[in-house]
């Protein structure tokens, strides 16, 4: 069944090309109207199947619209709108086109009902995101952009290989629950591809590598789409996959550990994306209705508060040009509005009651509780403490308070503040009236976040995390260091192999050749000389002796060969007689 339908993703991707032909106010109006139109279209869209095209004997479904796809599409379109408001002052068409294409591709992936269209939009997302990184046009950004491409080509190839295997195995390209194929090569390859995009360690080092290198505005888009569309794809295809429970919980803690060591403000926030996506992955693995609702709701809330946090850090980058915490301090006097809006995002990610994270993150944690998984519950709660420690305390402390370094700064352009305001309002609305979000989730929600135990325990957790922070404040002073992650393998791996070849391997080769020299000269050559002696003295002499003996016997035999018949007859008779005698006496 195909009805009249305009793909909201296509609207953004195609509409973006209007921008280079507009100027001034018209351009700014188009920048707002495009994502706003996409958002309205998503909101009014009814569940159903749209945009079905027959290709290569397969049905390619561009519009599989159900509750899960819709809730992701709302937040993708909303954050695209907020991101464009944030970018209004930027005079770089390439960035705007890349950002809108990226948002459109993410919407395309969410509505894709089959693997072919999913793959198409998946790759378009990777390409447009890489362009957003490259467009910072600095050597470090270009290098990070190419590394981003490298990793995502790997992920894309895994996806393609998985799709082809799945197709050959089942004859269908439909993208749905893959759990019946668990353990097959196709299942594993597609899972790996999704995990690469979800930035799951050890496949996720590309995220903190690339995102902090993007422009202040580009990073806001980057935080939203790639990881969360992967979470969507995992919910769709891999709900209830046990390994994801542990992987997700470990990921939540991993991000927190790296955030302690981080000095770059946006890289610290990037590690917290990994940590927060960990909750979602864990929810996907748990697979219950509460857990899947939790993963979806947390993705929704996360996109908004993480965009807000990146907008805050981006605003500081924009006006001061600084990105390292060790260079910042005392900005609260000059940027009070930025600080206030940033703190709304920080409270939301830290799950402070009445902010969005409180009503979404707790769904996943409660789902772990209902499944009686104490270790997972404890790990996720520990990561919650770590989240508040960094985004709620460490980053604002060193960025806005801390030592006053006499920096000159001012509030960022108004459009940036408006965009941050929009995201902040969304964080508070979801936190205060969670039913707004709960009513959109894929399954019916019976969960009540505001219980006495939940509220008091959360306040206790956050308050005493703050106590721990102040107790160990000296330990947390940012240091000018970088932390090793799995990107080491493709950033320094080549050099390491070269060093190994020139160092240890060369030494090993030298030793082997010296050893071989010794063995050859002293042993093999010695034995050779001995053998030559034996050959000369023994074998040759023996052969000469045998030759001479043969010659002598031949000479003697020659005497017997006289040519006279009588003599031969006599010898034969003697022989016969000897034979007879032997026969008679021998028997």
């Amino acid at each position, binding site marked *: 069944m195909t009805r009249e339908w305009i793909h909201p993703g296509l609207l953004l991707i195609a509409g973006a090309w209007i921008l280079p032909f507009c100027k001034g106010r018209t351009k700014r109006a188009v920048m707002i109207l495009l994502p706003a139109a996409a958002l309205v279209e998503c909101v009014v869209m009814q569940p159903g199947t749209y945009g079905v095209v027959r290709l290569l004997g397969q049905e390619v479904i561009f519009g599989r619209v159900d509750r899960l796809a819709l809730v992701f599409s709302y937040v993708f379109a909303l954050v695209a709108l907020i991101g464009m408001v944030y970018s209004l002052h930027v005079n770089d068409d390439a960035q705007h086109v890349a950002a809108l294409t990226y948002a459109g591709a993410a919407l395309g992936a969410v509505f894709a009902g089959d693997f072919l269209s999913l793959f198409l939009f998946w790759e378009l997302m990777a390409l447009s995101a890489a362009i957003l990184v490259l467009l910072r046009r600095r050597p470090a950004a270009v290098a990070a952009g190419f590394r981003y491409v490298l990793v995502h080509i790997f992920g894309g190839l895994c996806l393609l290989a998985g799709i082809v295997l799945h197709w050959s195995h089942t004859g269908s390209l439909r993208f749905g629950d893959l759990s019946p194929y668990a353990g097959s090569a196709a299942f594993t390859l597609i899972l790996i591809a999704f995990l690469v995009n979800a930035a799951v360690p050890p496949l996720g080092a590309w995220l903190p590598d690339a995102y902090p290198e993007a422009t202040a505005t580009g990073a806001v888009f980057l935080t939203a789409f790639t990881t969360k569309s992967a979470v969507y794809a995992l919910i769709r295809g891999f709900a209830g996959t046990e390994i994801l429970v542990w992987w997700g919980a470990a990921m939540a803690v991993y991000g*927190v550990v790296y955030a302690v*060591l981080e000095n770059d403000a946006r890289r610290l926030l990037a590690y917290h994306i990994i940590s927060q996506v960990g909750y979602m992955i864990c929810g996907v693995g748990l697979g219950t209705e509460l857990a899947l609702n939790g993963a979806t709701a947390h993705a929704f809330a996360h996109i908004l508060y993480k965009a807000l946090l990146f907008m805050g850090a981006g605003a500081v980058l924009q006006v001061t040009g600084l990105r390292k915490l060790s260079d910042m301090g005392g900005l609260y006097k000059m940027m009070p509005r930025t600080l206030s809006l940033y703190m709304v995002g920080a409270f939301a990610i830290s799950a402070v009651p009445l902010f969005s994270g409180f009503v979404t993150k707790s769904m996943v944690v409660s789902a772990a509780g209902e499944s009686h998984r104490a270790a997972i519950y404890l790990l996720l709660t520990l990561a919650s403490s770590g989240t508040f420690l960094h985004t709620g305390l460490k980053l604002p402390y060193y960025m806005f308070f801390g030592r006053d370094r006499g920096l000159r700064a001012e509030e960022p352009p108004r459009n940036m503040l408006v965009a941050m305001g929009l995201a902040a309002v969304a964080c508070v609305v979801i936190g205060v009236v969670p039913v707004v979000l709960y009513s959109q989730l894929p399954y019916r929600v019976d969960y009540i976040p505001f219980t*006495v135990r939940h509220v008091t325990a959360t*306040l*206790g*957790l956050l308050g005493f995390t703050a106590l721990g922070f102040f107790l*160990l404040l000296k330990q947390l002073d940012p240091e000018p*260091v970088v932390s090793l992650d799995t990107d080491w393998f493709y950033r320094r791996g080549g050099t390491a192999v070269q060093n190994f070849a020139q160092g240890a391997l060369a030494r090993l080769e030298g030793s082997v050749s010296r050893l071989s020299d010794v063995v050859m000269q002293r042993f093999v050559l010695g034995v050779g000389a001995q053998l030559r002696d034996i050959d000369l003295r023994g074998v040759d002499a023996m052969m000469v002796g045998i030759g001479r003996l043969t010659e002598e016997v031949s000479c003697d035999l020659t005497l017997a060969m006289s040519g006279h018949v009588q003599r031969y007859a006599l010898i034969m008779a003697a022989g016969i007689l000897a034979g007879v005698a032997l026969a008679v006496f021998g028997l």
Partner: protein
Amino acid sequence: MTFKRWFHVGLVVFAVGEIAGPHLFRADHAHFWFEDIPAWGSIYGLVSCLLIIIGSKLLGKLWLTRPENYYDS
């Protein structure tokens, strides 16, 4: 100094609230036994925070951190 005092008052309020809250109001069911430990959230918050800072710093010192120009050289 004022901030410090308010902070400490806040901590006491949180801890007392956590202990008294479930007794004063009808509390929801706990998933695990350890959630019934008085002031569980506060204790676990402090322990988690200290564990994360000390554990991560140790990991960093022993293994993970390198000079800032590590990837440039």
